């Protein structure tokens, strides 16, 4: 996209989205970019998501560190949905990500039971080994490694949105 131009989502042309393909390619002006557009069921293993994230990283030329951070955040959020928001394993989980300038914007949207993972407090990371609690680390990692993180209940969906900076390393 040309620098400084403003493009609404309506102007994006979807070039390719076939079946369960995890990526779609969109043209905006003279630039083609890749976006993750993946639907998982809670019973799925996460291999398809890992593949989609790696394909997205390749297509967008993202640094390995950014791909790892994106992978980590998505894994933590999606496993939270599977473990807490979808007790019977029937939830459908939509995972999307796109590049916006120097940021990657990600969304996880599911139709499981209402569940705000951000309501959980982070563990006390200064506790001793004996006193350190076992759980809660996933949400703590998501909180620390993302920005603009917020949860919303939209109709019958849980929606968690976040952004990460594109970082070399």
């Amino acid at each position, binding site marked *: 996209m040309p620098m400084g131009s403003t493009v609404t989502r309506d102007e994006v042309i979807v070039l390719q989205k076939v079946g369960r393909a995890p990526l779609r390619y969109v043209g905006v002006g003279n630039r083609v970019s890749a976006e993750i557009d993946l639907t998982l069921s809670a019973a799925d293993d*996460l291999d398809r998501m890992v593949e989609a994230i790696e394909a997205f990283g390749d297509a967008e030329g993202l640094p390995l560190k950014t791909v790892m951070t994106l992978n980590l955040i998505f894994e933590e959020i999606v496993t939270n949905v599977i473990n807490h928001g979808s007790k019977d394993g029937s939830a459908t989980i939509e995972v999307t990500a796109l590049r916006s300038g120097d940021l990657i914007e990600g969304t996880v949207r599911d139709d499981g039971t209402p569940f705000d993972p951000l309501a959980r407090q982070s563990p006390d*990371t200064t506790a001793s*080994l004996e006193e*350190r609690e076992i759980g809660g680390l996933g949400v703590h*990692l998501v909180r620390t490694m993302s920005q603009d993180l917020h949860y919303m209940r939209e109709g019958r969906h849980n929606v968690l949105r976040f952004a990460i900076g594109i970082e070399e390393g």
Partner: protein
Amino acid sequence: MSDLTIVDEKVGDVLVVAPAGRVDSATAKTLETDILGKLGAGETNVVIDLEGVDYISSAGLRVILLAGKKAKAEGGAIRLCGLQPTILEVFEISGFLRLFEVKPDRSEAIAAASA
């Protein structure tokens, strides 16, 4: 895709456990079975060499925390080495660098564990 292999090596009375690949929600159980099994069999002086690990999520951190608690309860310790920069950052955010002794490489970790 979610591949994890684990190679163990005994050096004196120190057990070195070297996972390689991804330690995520799909593979953490493999690491848990391996390490907790070894601890249960009496190995309490353990080095986890993470040089071959390029990804770890909270599922893997949970296993390392469980192992650390169990080793300490039995009078031993878990030491870590070989953390790649991105892995080191995840451990730092998690507060694990204050829970575990971390050495740059395996020989230093074994030396510390043998002292």
